[in-house]
């Protein structure tokens, strides 16, 4: 997904060097060369080209609204994450007892029942990963926006970004469990499980953070890197 990938002929060695050295100092970017790559199919055009002739995608050397969208989705995700933690995730009705538990409450309950492994899984999937994602995305966007990255952090940030994108979908595991439980455990009076408000807002939060990560134009990482170098 890097902008350089679209570069057909020029300085393959330099590219290799850049990777090896962990620095983009000597790399000639497409933008510098007056070129723009289609993010859809990878075809390279002159910078004046507005649309990809092959796939019809809009071409832009850098997505100028990227950071805005990142921040917007990030904020939406964060907002959705608050009720996800405050409201009950599951409403369990057993023998007339209605028990509603929030995410953290559920984790504590699991610990009470000494199901430590499950508690760790739930805690990781529902608390640690989302929070780490928020921090990671915020860090990436912040570092790009204010060009405060470390000189040689470009590659690390690229890895971080890839990881965030990869792991995002797995955060849905929580919502998935709730959905399965509430469709399977329906025994009327004896036991039944219903999703709470938190399940919806948690799903939204995950979706928003995924969109936020997707909105991030990773090419900006390298721009920031270069800007720092110059």
């Amino acid at each position: 997904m890097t902008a350089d990938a679209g570069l057909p002929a020029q300085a393959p060695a330099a590219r290799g060097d850049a990777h090896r050295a962990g620095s983009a100092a000597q790399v000639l970017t497409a933008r510098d060369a007056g070129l723009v790559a289609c993010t859809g199919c990878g075809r390279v055009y002159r910078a004046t080209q507005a649309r990809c002739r092959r796939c019809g995608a809009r071409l832009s050397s850098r997505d100028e609204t990227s950071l805005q969208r990142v921040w917007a989705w990030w904020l939406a995700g964060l907002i959705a994450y608050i009720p996800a933690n405050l409201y009950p995730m599951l409403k369990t009705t057993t023998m007339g007892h209605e028990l509603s538990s929030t995410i953290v409450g559920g984790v504590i309950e699991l610990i009470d029942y000494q199901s430590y492994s499950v508690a760790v899984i739930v805690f990781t999937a529902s608390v640690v990963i989302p929070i780490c994602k928020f921090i990671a995305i915020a860090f990436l966007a912040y570092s790009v926006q204010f060009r405060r990255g470390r000189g040689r952090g470009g590659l690390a940030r690229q890895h971080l970004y890839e990881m965030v994108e990869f792991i995002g979908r797995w955060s849905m595991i929580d919502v998935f469990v709730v959905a399965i439980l509430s469709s399977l455990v329906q025994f009327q009076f004896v036991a039944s499980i219903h999703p709470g408000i938190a399940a919806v807002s948690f799903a939204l939060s995950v979706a928003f953070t995924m969109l936020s990560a997707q909105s991030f134009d990773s090419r900006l990482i390298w721009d920031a890197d270069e800007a720092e170098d110059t």
Partner: protein
Amino acid sequence: MTDPSTPGIGAAEMQVQAPKRSPWRNVSIVWLIPVLALAVSLAVAWRTFSERGILIRIDFENAAGVTAGETAVRYRDVAIGVVEKVGFSSDLARVVVSARIDKTVAPFLDDSAQFWVVQPKVTAEGVSGLSTVLSGVYIEGTWDKTPGAPQDQFKGLEEQPLVDPNEKGTRVTLRAGDGQAITGGSPVFYRGVRVGRTETPRLDASGAVVLVEAFIEAPHDRLLTTATRFWNASGFSVSLGAGGLKLDVGSLAALISGGVAFNTFFTGGQPVKTGQVYDLYDDETVARENAFSRVSSNTITVGTVFVGGVSGLTTGSALFYKGVKIGEVGAISAFVTGEDRQMEVHQLVSLDIDPKLLGLQASATLPDVLEFLEAAVASGVRARLTKANLLSGSLIVEFAEVEDAKPAELEPDAKPYPLVPSVESDLQDVNATLEGVMKRVNALKIEDLIQQAISTLATVESFASNKELREVPKSVVELLDKTRDLVASEDIQALPGDLRQTVEELRDTIAQIRQDGVVARLVSVLESADVAMANISLASQEVPALVEDVRAVAAKARDLPLQDLVDSATGLLQSADALIDTDAARALPASLNASLDEMRILLSELREGGAVANTNAALASARSATESLERATANLPQLTARLDQLVARAEGLVAAYGDRSDFNAETLSMLREVRAAARSITALTRSIERSPNSLLFGK
């Protein structure tokens, strides 16, 4: 790429964008998403907050099973809140339950609100709260349907209130003499159908009256009028009357938890409102007797004057005319006429008459009634005291048609009431006697009666278990044996033979003298006589020994504790007779009612136990006493018969001896004594046989 400073002057082909871009142009539309999310979140938060109920505090004595965060607060079985916290009051005396209650019901939580913890409960009337076995306890609340000044502090009840504020019906107060037969939640019956329930009896401020709140459910509460009478329908009642023994048993629930019944015996009552006070009568009969409409809207008051005592006449005593109750006694006051020497006490009795019962219009006025009475008086009607009935000591007033009554007139203008002329009751003496009897009956304490019976039984028992008594039959048998031995002794048996022989010989001798001449035969006669005399003297020598024997027997018989026996028997008989002959015993049927009432009280004390065991023990000992007595006396008649036989024989024998011998007289008197003793024993036996039975029957 653009030159904003020189628009339209040069490089026209470069002018591709507006010279001044609005800062908003760069704002991505995606920003709408967080704004929207924020809006939604805030909306949800606001809704949650606005729907968040109010927090109330309920104090409970104890809150078994109430769990913070789980226990629901329900109203009409719908959850309206949940317990948030369970804590203690500052002095740890009470449990304070904090619950968040739905906002919609908050305005109704005024001072009418009541809360209690619903737990499974098994009572005589059924099982309730069974669902809480599975779901755990919950707090149920109830309140009326009108919003009042909201409160947030409530005092929890120990258990469900008997009357839900929402339940339609009428709450009345019953006044009773004692609250023994009524417990909280006792049913209220109307013609055997359960139509309400009572609360726990409480004492009024003075402690003289027991007040019971009763709740009659709608629509049955419209059966209540001012003419309604309530009575105690608890358990069962036994009454002995002209119709025989009557046993009334209510429902089983009423037997255990007591109950109250009501009925309206006559028409004309006014509808009642909540808070109406009724008297609670002891039973239906009494309630029926009190059915005169004291509440009758229109009563006419007249008066009459009686000379002498009116003891037994009370306010509320009935007024009868031709056997129909037409009113009742209102007030009794006494006044004195005459000088010191001839002072007379007169009783002014006011009589409240219901014209309707007199056959007049319900709205009849005093003149109408007076007109009616005037005609009646002219035809000989006079006010007269009479007995309410034979058994009770109470008096009633009747307007009786008295033949050859002294002319008298109604005094319509007398003050304070128009006066109806009265006559001295012709039953006065009988009444007085009866009254006296009844007074004594009234004065009789059934406990004393029972006490007497018990003590009599105890006497019988101690008498029966008396060792001497047990030994009587044995001693008498011994005596008999000795007597028989005596009678059968050869000496006695031989006596008549010898005597006869002598007589024969004498006759022969005389015959021979007649035949043969006197002198010649005289010698031989004398010889024979000598022989006979010798024989007789031989026999006579034996006689003192015999007499000695008999004397010993007599002494023995005298020594027997017969006198004691007879004394005790007499004493017993006297006490038994006293018991049987007392007015108390004769009045037993009447007293039985009282006794049965006491029994009922006794039965109600049965829960505490012991009484039955004691009674059983007492009865058992009485029975065993009677049995041992019967065993002991079973042989007595036989013994008596034998004694009689013996005496007859002895008399026959002794008669042969002649009239004047000492032996004869002594033996006879001895034997008569024995027979008298035997007869007394027989009499005793019969009395004893009779009296324990009557005692037992009496009890």
